[in-house]
């Protein structure tokens, strides 16, 4: 009395719901852990899952249990040295052994509760409550995309689209409709024939007549086709345009001699956050890297972050280049334009007003959001002061000073927190 069942192909994620419940319940603790982790996370690591640890005291499930103290007897195995009456010192650490073995799982002093969450979960938590500022759909004139979707059934179509269930259901209905009356008649006749058969002195002619009729009816019922072209139903598909939202993200960075690798790494983290964040809101997102010292240049990612340059700094060159690229490749009517500028604050003193002018007259008119981070521990210079005045004038401009890696995430959150309108 036994039988084997192969369950190996059954679903294996039975615990997925419970896992989500757990994440939901400890969202606040996990979010804190996530926030801490961004400052430690390696910059190149944007695909892998994230290890999270939250204090286990927060997630314990309490029960009533016996505490320390009191009088206990414990029977232990493996006596190798003791005789009755031997006395031994209480093991240190609170005056007694851990009591009964089972109770220790609720004891204190446990490690943190460690586990990993997937990249998606990680980003969800990371960007929870964040919102894109000034999110408007820009006209999707350039390329209209279509999506195909199911819309009902039709009577004509190509064979691959035949809906078998629908067709057979129709066929069955037709068969019932066409044969019901005949079947009823047939039944009546058969009953009559039965009674005639029982009756010894029944009329032979009548019997043959009925037999004829039965045969005729059976023939006609049989003639009703099982399926007719008339029954066939085809799945219908329609097309509708889908609004596509494109975004372009400009990364501007000062790579002059004063920017060391550590500063660039910090900037990179900010760009990663911004990119991941935009990625969740826009289907199609392009990134343009512009680096500058005294001249600006559009480069690829590798060169952007890792090539070493020396020389002075002219910020306006980058802004110029950005403006050129926008007007040639990313018309503001079709693209949501974001820009993030990172710098250590150095600039030629007389270049700063030029930057201000460029921003005011051109860039800020078409960018959704322009964020400026200054990564420095020193006092601010002309660029900062210039930008400060812009900050007070424009809604879509934001600036912050980053001193260390752990500042990045809080500042990022501040940039994109939900009530973006409340700007000081």
């Amino acid at each position, binding site marked *: *009395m*036994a*039988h*084997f*069942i*192969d*369950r*190996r192909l*059954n679903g*294996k*994620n039975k*615990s997925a*719901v*419970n*896992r*989500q*419940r*757990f*994440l939901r*319940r*400890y969202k606040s603790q996990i979010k804190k852990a996530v926030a801490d982790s961004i400052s430690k996370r390696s910059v190149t690591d944007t695909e892998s899952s994230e290890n999270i640890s939250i204090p286990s005291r927060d997630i314990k*499930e*309490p*029960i*009533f*249990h*016996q*505490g320390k*103290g*009191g*009088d*206990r*007897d*414990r*029977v*232990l*195995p*493996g*006596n*190798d040295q*003791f*005789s*009755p*009456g*031997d*006395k*031994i*010192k*209480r093991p240190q650490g609170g005056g*007694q*052994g851990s*009591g*009964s*073995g*089972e*109770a220790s799982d*609720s004891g204190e002093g446990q490690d943190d*509760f460690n*586990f*990993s969450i997937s990249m998606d979960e990680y980003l969800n938590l990371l960007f929870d409550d964040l919102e894109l500022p000034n999110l408007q759909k820009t006209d999707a004139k350039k390329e209209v995309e279509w999506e195909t979707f199911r819309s009902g059934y039709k009577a004509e179509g190509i064979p691959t689209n035949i809906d078998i269930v629908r067709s057979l259901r129709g066929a069955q209905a037709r068969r019932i409709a066409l044969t019901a009356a005949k079947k009823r008649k047939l039944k009546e006749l058969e009953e009559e024939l039965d009674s005639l058969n029982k009756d010894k002195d029944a009329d032979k002619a009548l019997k043959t007549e009925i037999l004829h009729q039965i045969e005729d009816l059976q023939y006609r019922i049989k003639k009703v086709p099982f399926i007719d072209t008339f029954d066939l139903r085809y799945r219908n598909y329609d097309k509708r345009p889908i609004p596509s939202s494109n975004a372009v993200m400009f990364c501007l960075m000062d790579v002059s001699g004063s920017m060391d690798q550590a500063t660039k790494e910090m900037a990179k983290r900010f760009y990663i956050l911004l990119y991941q964040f935009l990625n969740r809101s826009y289907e199609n997102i392009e990134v343009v890297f512009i680096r500058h010292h005294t001249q600006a240049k559009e480069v690829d990612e590798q060169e952007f972050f890792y090539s070493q340059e020396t020389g002075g700094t002219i910020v306006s060159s980058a802004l110029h280049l950005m403006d050129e690229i926008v007007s040639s490749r990313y018309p503001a009517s079709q693209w949501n334009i974001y820009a993030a500028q990172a710098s250590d604050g150095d600039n030629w003193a007389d270049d700063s007003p030029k930057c201000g002018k460029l921003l005011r007259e051109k860039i800020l008119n078409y960018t959704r959001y322009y964020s400026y981070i200054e990564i420095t521990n020193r006092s601010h210079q002309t660029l900062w002061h210039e930008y400060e005045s812009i900050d007070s004038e424009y809604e879509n401009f934001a600036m912050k000073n980053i001193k260390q890696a752990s500042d990045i995430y809080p500042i990022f959150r501040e940039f994109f927190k939900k009530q973006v309108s409340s700007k000081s």
Partner: protein
Amino acid sequence: MTSNLKKATETLSDGPEWTFDLLEQYQEEIRRVAEYYRLDTYPNQIEIITSEQMLDAYSSVGMPINYHHWSFGKKFIESEQNYKRGYMGLAYEIVINSDPCISYLMEENTITMQALVIAHACYGHNSFFKNNYLFKTWTDASSIIDYLLFARSYIEECERKYGVEEVEEILDSCHALMNLGVDRYKRPQKISMFEEQKRQKEREEYLQSQVNQLWRTIPQKEQETKKKKIKFPAEPQENILYFFEKHAPLLAPWQRELLRIVRKVSQYFYPQKQTQVMNEGWASYWHYTILNHLFDEGLVTERFILEFLHSHTAVVYQPPYNHPGYSGINPYALGFAMFKDIRRICENPDEEDKRWFPEIAGKDWLDTLHYAMENFKDESFISQYLSPKVIREFKLFNLQDYEQNPMLEITSIHNEQGYQDIRQKLASQYNLSMLEPNIQITNVDVNGDRSLTLEYVPHNNIPLGETVPEMMRHIYRLWGFDVRLMEKRENGRCVELAKCPPEKKEADD
């Protein structure tokens, strides 16, 4: 026994890979031998699962289906992490006390391991579930799966109606009080779970009307109000969840049902907690006996039996107290040794055994073994059958840890003077009422502020653990009015341990 051995002409393949055909063959042979030893089982349903599915099963306390709760998610994450990092191996099997008896076998086991598991779980545990008196009284194997199905859909419906958080709050509190949701002394009645579903609605209405009766505020006839001055509850109540289900003033009908579900599940697991040593010992004894029997018959190869013995000895190993891997007495080891020893006492008793076990020495071993399995739980099993030989084998000794003594003392060891004491001490170590705090509901102020009083009676002066304030909040959540926890000291005085909500303390006193 040798006369009964049928000599096999051909051995079964020893794999190591298994196939369903081969499993079937082994199963059939094992069944035959198990029958020969009179193991009476539920029909077996053996399911092959992957390690990931095993992790799933772990997290829902081994049940194939369970309601959703974050704590199961936590358990899952925990086991997953431990498993992935190699801190923990997975069990070879999980077996469920149900009819048919469901056992899970892991895909990666070799054929030897599968055979071991089939003998261990599908015949050992299975027969224990079916015949041990605790399981017979407390659980209804045929309906547990139905009941869990009902519980899950009911809770899901509640979540839809009242929100996940509302449900979670109640479940959290219920889980906290789970151990106090069992009748320890009263025998529960069995109910088919289909009936349960039918009755659920009726009960809901009836229960609510009863509660309303109790908490009626409109004055009744005079005599009746006088009657109510009588202490309520009349006797202390140990089953706190049951008491809340019936009498908590503020719970909605669906919340009472949740209490009931947690209570039922807790009751279902109650026998397992009390029969670990016996259950594992019994199952280990039979996998050992059955597979050796197959070997004696020449049905399995030497390679098979060596691989089996290797696993078997690892399972029944008892590390000594000062071993880094020591984590209490291994129930497999103790149970196996005891069952083996009972057989020895029956078959080859020596002087000592005749003195200690006159009633079983020389009796039919199989009868004795079955009798022991059917009529005991860990505590009584040990106090009845732990022999001096096993005490010597395990080198057991008792360590006395009294709070007022500065030193720990060894009071008895495995010698003539110590056997009795060790046997009694070890048995009481498996007495749940000494391991779990004894907390009962003693009073409800029915006519006054509706406050609830619980009383903790310490065992051997052991105080309550540090979770008291948290637990008080859980109790308060379910009860809805002030809750007080008293501790009954040795001199008979009651001291207030905690109160919830605490800030009202002064105003109230």
